[in-house]
């Protein structure tokens, strides 16, 4: 088990470091007029967070045998299958986009280890607060692919999973809103005295700049509520690079100000991501308050299917090393070496997944025509007089 309490120790370390500075200052009093060595604090404050957990490196080499040995062969294959599924979903959605059969869709290419590693650590009873790039995790948690497509296309049946009792909320568009709502759900879980249950929430590197990001983690921490905060740092908020978001060297350290332990993980390594996510979940579920995980990943392609062109703002030289870290390459190599995987098996799976997605799209396209009168009926529990009059007006139009 990774020690999440380490994060809390950082506060202690900072205090200790300040105390040491004070001693240093006393001895150097004659040389400097400064009381505090801010330069030193600044240059060392991120150190405890800059140790991303890794199990297999980008060449497929197992760098932490002890952690690797925690996985059974079956589990390794399952994790690989989930990444292959997500990549197939990505490829098929891009085809659908080109065919004009989808609406807004956020590509997930390159983020399979981060998304599936975290999703694999979720339990059915957990509440999920996804953002718009998190449809794959949402589907893993109980939404259907058809509902994902309907969300992208813009149809009310996209949220049928909520009605089925899946504990997941909407793919949030307002960046940060999911964080404050997650804190509320976590407090609700605590007040309901639900055991072994947490609230999961996702944002990206850009999302950590939102005020709601801090309010969410701080509220959950103040109430010591079981929330697990994930930051999928994929390097880019549309065209704005990670370094513009903050001068802090890591996003994991953003937890410390609110008393939330944070950690970085190699988000291109699904084994490391899963283990860290699981520990974060265990920590929160055990009543220790929230935890924060920053996955280091990369958005291989565009921000969205709506015309974003990464070549406008980033170079091929930047992209190349990240493409080499492709999460599928390294696990594929490990599994192939263990004779658990081969290209033929992968090709068959991809074909099978894509056939299913094509059927899911057909099902989505067969969704009933939406009625404005229904939207009006769902505006209030009991329609107000004006809304009631508009319901009649639209029902009359719709019956023609």
């Amino acid at each position, binding site marked *: 088990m990774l020690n999440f309490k380490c994060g809390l120790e950082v506060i202690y370390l900072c205090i200790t470091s300040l105390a040491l500075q004070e001693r240093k200052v006393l001895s150097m009093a004659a040389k400097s007029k400064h009381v505090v060595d801010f330069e030193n604090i600044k240059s060392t404050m991120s150190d405890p967070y800059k140790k991303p957990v890794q199990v297999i490196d980008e060449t497929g080499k197992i760098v932490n045998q002890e952690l690797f040995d925690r996985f059974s062969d079956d589990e390794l294959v399952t994790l690989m299958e989930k990444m292959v599924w997500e990549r197939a979903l990505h490829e098929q959605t891009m085809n659908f986009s080109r065919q004009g059969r989808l609406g807004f869709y956020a590509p997930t290419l390159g983020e399979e280890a981060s998304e599936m590693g975290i999703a694999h650590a979720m339990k059915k009873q957990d*509440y999920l607060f996804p953002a718009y790039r998190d449809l794959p995790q949402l589907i893993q948690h109980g939404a259907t692919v058809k509902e994902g497509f309907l969300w992208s296309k813009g149809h*009310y049946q996209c*949220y049928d999973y*909520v*009605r089925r009792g899946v504990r997941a*909320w*909407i793919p949030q568009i*307002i960046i940060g*809103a999911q*964080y*404050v*709502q*997650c*804190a*509320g*759900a*976590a*407090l*609700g*879980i605590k*007040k*309901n005295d639900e055991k072994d249950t947490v*609230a999961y929430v996702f944002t990206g590197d850009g999302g950590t700049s939102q*005020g*709601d990001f801090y*309010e*969410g983690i*701080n*509220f959950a921490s*103040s109430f010591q509520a079981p929330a697990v905060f994930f930051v999928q740092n994929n390097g880019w908020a549309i065209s704005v690079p990670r370094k513009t978001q903050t001068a802090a060297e890591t996003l994991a350290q953003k937890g410390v100000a609110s008393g939330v332990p944070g950690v970085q993980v190699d988000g291109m390594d699904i084994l490391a991501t899963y283990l860290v996510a699981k520990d974060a979940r265990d920590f929160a579920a055990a009543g220790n308050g929230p935890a924060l995980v920053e996955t280091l990943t990369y958005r291989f392609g565009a921000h969205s299917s709506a015309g974003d062109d990464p070549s406008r703002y980033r170079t091929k030289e930047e992209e190349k090393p990240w493409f080499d870290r492709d999460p599928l390459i390294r696990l594929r190599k490990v599994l192939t070496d263990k004779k658990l995987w081969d290209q033929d098996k992968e090709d068959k799976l991809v074909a099978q997944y894509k056939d299913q997605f094509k059927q899911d799209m057909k099902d989505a396209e067969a969704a009933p025509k939406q009625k404005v009168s*229904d*939207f009006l*009926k*769902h*505006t*209030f*529990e009991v329609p*107000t*007089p*004006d*809304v009631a009059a508009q319901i009649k007006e639209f029902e009359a139009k719709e019956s023609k």
Partner: protein
Amino acid sequence: MAKLTYIKAITDGLDQVLQDDPKTLIFGEDVGKNGGVFRTTVGLQDKYGTDRVFDTPLAESGILGLSIGLALTGWRPIPEIQFMGFTMEAVDSIGGQMSRNRFRMSGDVSMPITIRTPFGGGTHTAELHGDSLENLFVGIPGLRVVTPANPYDAKGMVISAVENNDPVLFMENLKLYRSMKDEVPDGHYTVPLDKAKVAREGSDITIVAYSAEVNEALKVADKLEKENISVEVIDLRSLSPIDTETIFNSIDKTHKVVVAQEAQKMAGVGAQVASAVAEDDIMSLDAPIGRVSAPDSVFPFAMAENDWLPNADDIEAKVREILNY
């Protein structure tokens, strides 16, 4: 039955809903041990415990985001935003999130959240404490915006708001908190959320008002009665939706109307009332629709409040103008 101030009537109503429904929660800044900066929640934490009535970190977006997550997990939140100006920090939670959730879920998910917040001029507060911001909120589909003008309605409406399964922005008038007393029944009673009230019957002209302006309108009615001018005063109570039926019934009788509000003139409640009358009942009128409002500047510096806020004199002047049209 006891004579209660407006603020005590609200406290009484909150006490009632905490007692009636174990899923109700009151939270916000200073609402716990301190009982709120105006003492609206005084005594409730002692009576119901820190699990039901509790302080939060100081962040309005966090408070309303928390409300949404709590509602999703089965709770009935009653958050307090300490002053209405501070709702500016939480507009997404109100307009972008809680008010849309029933629609998003095709009617199957409720957001039974009552946001209590004090507003209204005349108490010489610091900036962004007394502003009437209802004009910003009444255009949000799925959100009810209500404000009582007297202690009886204050208690009955806060109970109705909490019992309602949709989000309600419950605006409490700062100036009225301790300036008026009323007979308020003990125990549980409700006042409907979307019905205006005829605060005073009359036959010559109708004044449509809400919150503190209702009292200003009643002063005008008292004064003009001595001149044998009979003024009907309608207290809207609900700003979204607006009960046009009660307004039209009155205008059909008086044929003249003045709409009075403390908020600035641009768009918003008075404009909506005027537009509804113009659209659906204009043939009943025999004079133009009169409007009384604050001017379209920013809410003034405290020392100039009395020069800026519309008062009984302004309403009286407009009533005379419309009567003499």
